[in-house]
Each structure stands twice: as C-alpha cells, then as structure tokens.
C-alpha cells in the first residue's frame, strides 16, 4: 500500500514538473524580451519610421495594424456568414459537411503555403505586386476558417428553446438569426474573432512574399506598395550586427506580445462571461 501511495505521489510530482518545464522557457522568454527591449523604448519608437537599422517602428506598427485590420474587415463578415450557414441554415447536408471539412483542413494548411499561394495568385498573376491587399487577403484566408468554426460552435450552444420560441412567434428564420440567436451567441463569436485576430497579429510567413517590407509608413493605396510589419522586424533585425537594430527587434517582439496578451485578456473576460471555454486553440 505504501508503495502504491508513493507511486501516486511521484506521478503527481511528475505531472507538476511537466507544467513547470513549460513554464520556465515562457518566463525566460518574457523576461529576455522585456529587459532587452528597454533601451529602445521611447516615444520616438511610435513616431519615427525605421531608418536603415535604426530609428523607430512607426511604419511597422501602422503596417501591422493596417494588414490585420484589413484582414479582419474581410474575414469577419465572410467567417460569420459562413458560420451562420453551418449553424442555422444547413446543419446537415452535403454542402454543409463539405464546408465544415474544408474549414478544418484549411486551418491545418501551413501559413507559408498560404503565403506562397498568395504570392503566385495575387503578387504575380493578378499583378498586385507586394502590397497591403495581397498580405491582408492572405491573412484573411487563414482567419476565415477559425471564425466559421467558432461562430458555428457558438450558435450550436444557443438554447434551442430561444430559437423555437422566436419561430413560434411567427418570426422567419432570417429574423430569428439576426434578432435572437446571433445575439445570444455573441460572446462566443467575438471570442473566435479575437483568437483569429491574435493569430493574424503574430504571423510572418504568409506576409514575407505578399506584403514585402517598407521603411515608410503605409502608402494611401492598397496595391503596388509594400508594407512593413512588426514580425518582419523581429526576424531580420536580430541578425544585424548593430545594437540599435537588435534593440528594435526586441521592442517589436515586446509590442507584439503586449498586443497578443491584450487580446487574450479580452478573450478570457468574454469566455468567463460566456461560461464555457470550449474554444478552438490554434
């Protein structure tokens, strides 16, 4: 009996260790990024663009916001409408099954493959060049399946009595969706959108050959003008020999993590309000 108890305790300790093993790198990573970005933190980080390997991050910050904002403007309506189709109009049937399946498969397609696809289709074949729109559409292709699936799952969890009550009162299915079920499912839908947003914020691979890179703040046109973004700075500037470049890389990493953390905190508040945490993690 004592041996069995001891083994039970040992396994408990091992399980705790598994959690700690993951915790240590995360803490180390956060501490490293915060400490090493300190020299670069100043107001000019936000107000001046990169000049060579120095300067600020204005262009990259604005570029990231533009790319992600555009991507969301495309993917939110498409994703939510797709989710409504799956969750309300066609719960069964061939097309619904195919859509659900393709959304799941699309979430699994590596982002670099999407980037290459975006390059071939938009940058070369459509002749958009490295541009904000090519980058944003590529990001949107990544984001849509997340939003479709989380919208559908949130709609599935809406109490059927609500839907039936509305239908029984004579409202059409369209009205019921717009007035009743979408509202009831809102926290879950917004959570799915925010998760897609945080994934898009941190992406690099799909943008390398669609958005390009620019040291200037985003141009007012969406085609034929490359855009800078934060993840690019992290990737390239860390390999520059100058200290100023490396500080910028850390500062960009810090900003990215703060943005993602901010979105995650929002998600947690929404989830606790929605009462369930059964959401797709990427």
């Amino acid at each position: 009996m004592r041996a069995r108890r001891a083994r039970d305790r040992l396994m408990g300790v091992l399980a705790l260790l598994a959690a700690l093993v993951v915790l240590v790198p995360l803490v180390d990573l956060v501490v490293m990024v915060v400490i090493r970005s300190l020299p670069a933190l100043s107001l000019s980080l936000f107000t001046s663009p990169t000049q060579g390997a120095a300067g600020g991050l204005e262009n990259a910050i604005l570029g990231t916001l533009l790319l992600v904002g555009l991507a969301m403007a495309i993917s939110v309506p498409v994703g939510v409408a797709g989710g409504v189709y799956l969750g309300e109009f066609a719960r069964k049937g061939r097309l619904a099954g195919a859509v659900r399946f393709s959304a799941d498969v699309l979430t699994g397609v590596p982002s670099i493959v999407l980037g290459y696809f975006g390059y071939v289709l938009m940058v070369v074949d459509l002749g958009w060049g490295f541009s904000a729109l090519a980058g944003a559409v590529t990001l949107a292709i990544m984001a849509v399946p997340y939003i479709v699936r989380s919208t559908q799952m949130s709609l599935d969890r809406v109490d059927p009595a609500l839907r039936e009550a509305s239908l029984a009162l004579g409202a059409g299915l369209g009205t019921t969706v717009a007035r009743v079920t979408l509202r009831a499912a809102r926290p879950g839908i917004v959570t799915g959108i925010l998760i897609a947003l945080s994934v898009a914020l941190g992406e690099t691979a799909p943008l390398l050959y669609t958005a390009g890179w620019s040291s200037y703040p985003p141009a007012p046109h969406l085609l034929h003008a490359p855009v800078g973004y934060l993840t690019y700075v992290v990737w390239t500037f860390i390999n520059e020999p100058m200290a100023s470049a490396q500080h910028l890389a850390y500062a960009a990493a810090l900003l990215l993590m703060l943005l993602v953390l901010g979105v995650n905190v929002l998600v947690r508040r929404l989830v606790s309000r929605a009462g369930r945490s059964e959401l797709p993690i990427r």
Partner: protein
Amino acid sequence: MPRVLTALVASFSLLALAAILLFLLGAAWPSIRYNGLTFLTGTTWNLGNLYAAAPVRVDGVRAMPGATFGALVFVLGTLLTSVLALVIAVPTSVGIAIFLTEYAPRRVGGAVSFVVELLAGVPSVVYGLWGIIVLVPWIGSWLGPALARALGFVPFLRGPVGTGAGLLASGLVLALMVVPIIASTVREALLMVPGELREGALALGMTRWEAIRAVSLPFARTGIVGASILGLGRALGETMAVLMVSGDAINLLPRNLYSPVGTMAATIAAQLDSALTDASGMAVHALAELALVLFLITVAVNVLARLVVRTGAMRRT
C-alpha cells in the same frame, strides 16, 4: 434568401482549398516535369549556373544548365524535427493535462492553463528570437555536450555538437509550440471521462494514479492520439521559428541530433529570394512543388487527426 447568400459565402473555404491546390499544381507543373521522381529522392538542391548565357530546354521546360532539385533533405528534415518535437511534447502535454484535471488545486490549475494559453499566443518569430539568443547557445555549450557525453554510445546522439543550431534546437522549439494544442485537447478528452467510472475506480481502493492509468487514460486514448496528430500537423508546417534555429541545411542530410537541418516550410521562406534570380523561373517552380508536397502531407495528417477524433467520439456515444 439569407440561406442562399450565406451558403455562397460559406463555400469560401471550399473554394480557397481548391484554388490553393490548383494554383500550386499549376506553379509546380514545370518542376514536376523537369525533376520527375528525383524531386523526392534526390538530396542536391542546386539552381544550376545562374550566369549561363541561356537556359537549357529539357522536355519542353526551361532550366539553367546543371540545375537539380532534390528535396529529400527537406522532407526528411521536416519529418525528423516534427517527430522529435512530438516525442518531447506528447508526454509533457499529457502530464500537464493530468496535472490540470486530477492533481492541481483549482487556483493553481487556472494559473497553469492561463500560462499554457499564453504559450499558444506567442508569435512564432518570438519563439525564434528566444531560440537564437537563449536556446541555441545553451544547446551548443551545455545541453549538446552533456547529451553527447551521457548517451554517446548511441551513434545518432554522438557529437560533434556544433553551434547548437539544428535538429535538437528545432525539435525543442517546435515542442514548446505544440504543447498548448496537445495539452488543451487532451485536457478536453480527460474531462469527458464519465465521473462514475473514475469514482468507481477510486471506490475500489485505487489510488489516483491507478485510476488515471486504468480508467482515464484508456478512455481518453483516441483523444490523445488525435491531439498528437493535430500537433504533428502544426509542427510540420511551422516556418519562422524553425527557420531561425535550424541552421538552414541544404544538400546535407542530418548526421546526428545536433546537425543543421532544413525543413520544407523554412526552405520555402529562405529560398524564394534567391529563386527569383533564376532567369528560367525553374527555381520558383521547384519551390512551388515543395509547397505542394508540404500541403499534401499536412492535409493528409489533418484529415487523419479529424477522423481519429471523430471515430473516437462516435465510439464513446
């Protein structure tokens, strides 16, 4: 009316998937004709003589003289790094999931699952950054030599260790990145274990661990397998972090655990710039074929994962 509209919009992912396949196939076609099966068996990736006066014509497609595109190094590199990542990440994730569902007090459990979620949110370039600055030097100066000394009787684990950038570093970074996916899915699976079964086991006098082994883990087995395959899909396609810590091997099969490796995803990202200098365009087509192969592998893996999870769920109900 709204039904038709939303159905049209919903077809987006279906269309996107078909378009990706078609465009990659189209872009890869000259390379498929030029390289044939050598693409999957060859280990030499050589753009040919880019300064030659004119491209040569082979089977109706143009390439620079001497160009060969063998992707075996990248295919193997991708598989090795991903499998290594799973070997590390699966036991760790199952441990975390068991800790969260069985052992952790409520408060601690909440904190740990928050940390695991944060881990999922860290952008992959930031993992790469940490990998370059912390992990790679640590492997080169400490972990690598220590492993080589302790386990050097296994040929694959013998030195030389090199700089630390390579297979082991890629595997560790990938493991860190897939742990959140696997841990959260396994946790869901463990939470589905019916309370009566667990309580029955405990009432029979089993310790907690015995109940986990005899009841919970067998019950959650398909969930664990499905989660691992999902994690594999993610690891296969991960680009930036691997690109930063893998040492970018070309034309070099890994000789030991510390060798530089190249993966398909990282190579696509690293090579497109130089591929664009190929006047015949064949290098770009070859990268498209690489993307196509990666696409097909990850789609197969993901379909497999969904099937496993779905059949598991059906058997349960």
